């Protein structure tokens, strides 16, 4: 089937929620025919326009509250837009949040039947697909137990298996996979690739796992404040979105690596372009020293906010001592959002002797990092402890700063080799 018509066409889609501070306000508005206004407007979507073709896997990224869920609900027909049109040529199935329209008292199998009936799909068809659904979900005996005893991961298995095998024209996957285990996620991604690969179906994939967007999607959209902020190939969209989330969004131009106008004070500490503190930061109440600034530098020594995959960079910080310190040990750590520690180093392990510091002394430490880390988000910790006891901290900030490495990820691995593999062609004589 070659269908040149877009499968989904949304034009100038806007959605207003009326917020009533008091429920009686609604009654007042009804009674006066809307002349007395007792509500505030909240626009969740503002003139959103997009299309989706068969054979596409569209990634949607955006911060919490950017309108992703509202848009998907309108697309799935579970909500009406205030203005604008949304046309869908086919059947949309949406895994919105967890346990899409499931009844907690019924078993997994009964829920599959009930959900398909609510979607207007005949029982025969579901009966024929049941084997595939069951095999894909691989819930074993839980298939015939009430879903109220399911874990959230098992619910995700049930929901995804159901919708993926009912052959929708558009499958919407909204964060539902995040709770599944790794093996199931892999299976889901493969299934989504299959669906898209045949060119008949389309997938809309909403996630905060930007890595997965890069890997799976053929196109991506960044939603911001209810409209499409940027649309294009996934790596470009992800990079712009990441940059925005790290707090540098407004200064960027598309497609160019940004050079910040960085000013440096007389001691060599940049006064702008530093890394922001992360939301996940844990600060310990040590008082021996404090971190004045934290930043990244490229090989040329310029301050950068984003690291390109395959480039070396330096993790830098400036520390001021509020108490005298004898040959203290500086350390740093880089971890993924999941907590895998990729780098853990300190000056003692590196056999670097540090001097003694008096109150008010400032030290700038730079850690060169070789290329090889995969694109993604990273959290950096730093600290300084006494020479004898690595646990006696003068200052300790865990997961305090966040940075991102951008670029397309060839595989899901955390690290890449930067050198080419070598083949030693061995000839076999027969």
């Amino acid at each position, binding site marked *: 089937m070659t269908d040149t018509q877009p499968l989904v066409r949304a034009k100038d889609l806007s959605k207003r929620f009326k917020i009533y501070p008091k429920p009686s306000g609604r009654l007042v508005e009804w009674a006066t025919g809307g002349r007395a206004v007792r509500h505030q407007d909240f626009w969740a979507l503002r003139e959103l326009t997009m299309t989706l073709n068969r054979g596409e896997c569209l990634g949607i990224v955006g911060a919490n509250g950017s309108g992703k869920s509202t848009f998907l609900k309108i697309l799935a027909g579970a909500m*009406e837009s205030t203005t604008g049109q949304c046309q869908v040529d086919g059947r949309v199935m949406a895994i919105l949040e967890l346990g899409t329209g499931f009844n907690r008292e019924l078993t997994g199998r009964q829920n599959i039947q009930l959900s398909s009936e609510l979607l207007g799909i005949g029982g025969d068809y579901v009966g024929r697909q049941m084997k595939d659904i069951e095999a894909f979900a691989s819930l074993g005996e839980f298939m015939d137990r009430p879903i109220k005893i399911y874990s959230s991961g098992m619910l995700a298995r049930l929901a995804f298996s159901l919708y993926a095998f009912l052959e929708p024209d558009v499958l919407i996957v909204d964060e539902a996979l995040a709770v599944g285990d790794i093996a199931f996620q892999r299976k889901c991604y493969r299934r989504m690739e299959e669906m898209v690969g045949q060119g008949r179906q389309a997938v809309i994939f909403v996630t905060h796992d930007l890595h997965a967007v890069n890997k799976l999607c053929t196109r991506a959209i960044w939603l911001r404040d209810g409209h499409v902020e940027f649309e294009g190939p996934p790596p470009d969209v992800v990079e712009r979105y990441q940059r925005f989330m790290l707090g540098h969004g407004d200064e960027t131009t598309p497609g160019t690596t940004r050079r910040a106008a960085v000013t440096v004070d007389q001691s060599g500490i940049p006064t702008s372009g530093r890394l922001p503190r992360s939301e996940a930061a844990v600060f310990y109440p040590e008082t021996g020293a404090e971190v004045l600034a934290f930043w990244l530098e490229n090989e040329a020594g310029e301050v950068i906010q984003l690291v390109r995959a395959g480039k070396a960079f330096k993790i830098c910080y400036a520390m001021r001592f509020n108490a005298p310190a004898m040959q203290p040990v500086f350390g740093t750590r880089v971890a993924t959002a999941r907590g895998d520690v990729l780098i853990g180093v300190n000056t003692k392990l590196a056999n670097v002797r540090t001097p003694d510091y008096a109150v008010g002394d400032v030290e700038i430490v730079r850690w060169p990092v070789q290329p090889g880390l995969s694109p993604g988000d990273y959290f950096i910790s730093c600290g300084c402890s006494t020479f004898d006891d690595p646990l006696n901290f003068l200052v300790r900030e865990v997961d305090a700063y966040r940075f991102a490495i951008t670029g397309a990820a060839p595989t899901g691995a955390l690290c890449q080799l930067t050198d080419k593999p070598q083949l030693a062609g061995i000839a076999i004589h027969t």
Partner: protein
Amino acid sequence: MGAVWNILHPLSLIAIYAVIFGAIMGRAMAEVPGPFGFPIYLCTGFFPWVAFSDCINRGAYSILGNAQYLKKLPVPEQVFVAQSAVGATITLVISYVMFIAIGLFLGLKPSLYWLLVPIPMVMLQIIGFGLGMIAGTLNVFFTDVSQILGIVLQVMFWLTPIVYPTSRVPSLGMVLKFSPATPAIEAIHDLMLWHRLPDLWTYPAMLIWTVGSMACGMWILNKLRGEIRDVL
């Protein structure tokens, strides 16, 4: 026991009303022949009333209670109201069959007029469906609706000739005619007990209530459909 409760519940209520009012008003009654005239009169109107009030009561919660589906699936709201109405009607059919089976032993006289009974019964259920849609829609926006509904249904019950025949309360005659269930219940009484066609006034009254409540229900639901899912 599940579905058995649907029968036991109205049966227990009938037993209570039959015993108490039987004690007050006597087991026999002038309007209905036989020694069990009063319980038979009571059952004739009581079961349709229970189904009717079930339509409204369950309808009032049907949209709110199925929020989990409505928030995520493109299912029209009235499906769930209709589900309540159909459920109540099935219970009515079962309990009425039971009532007739027992009633025949207690002096209920069969008649060809019985074949017409489904018409006022179904119309009564449609009125209940329409009012259920109104209650269900408003209940999404104002939680007080279900409380008010309880009072309204109580008043409506006593303003419908179910426990007493109209002839006993001549001073209330006009008032009773305005209760939405009265025309249908009176028609059922006529067909079941007195083996005659219902009074002429009941036809337009039933029709007005049926069309009116359905039109009103659909209008309110359509008017607020967009907002229902925003609020759920």
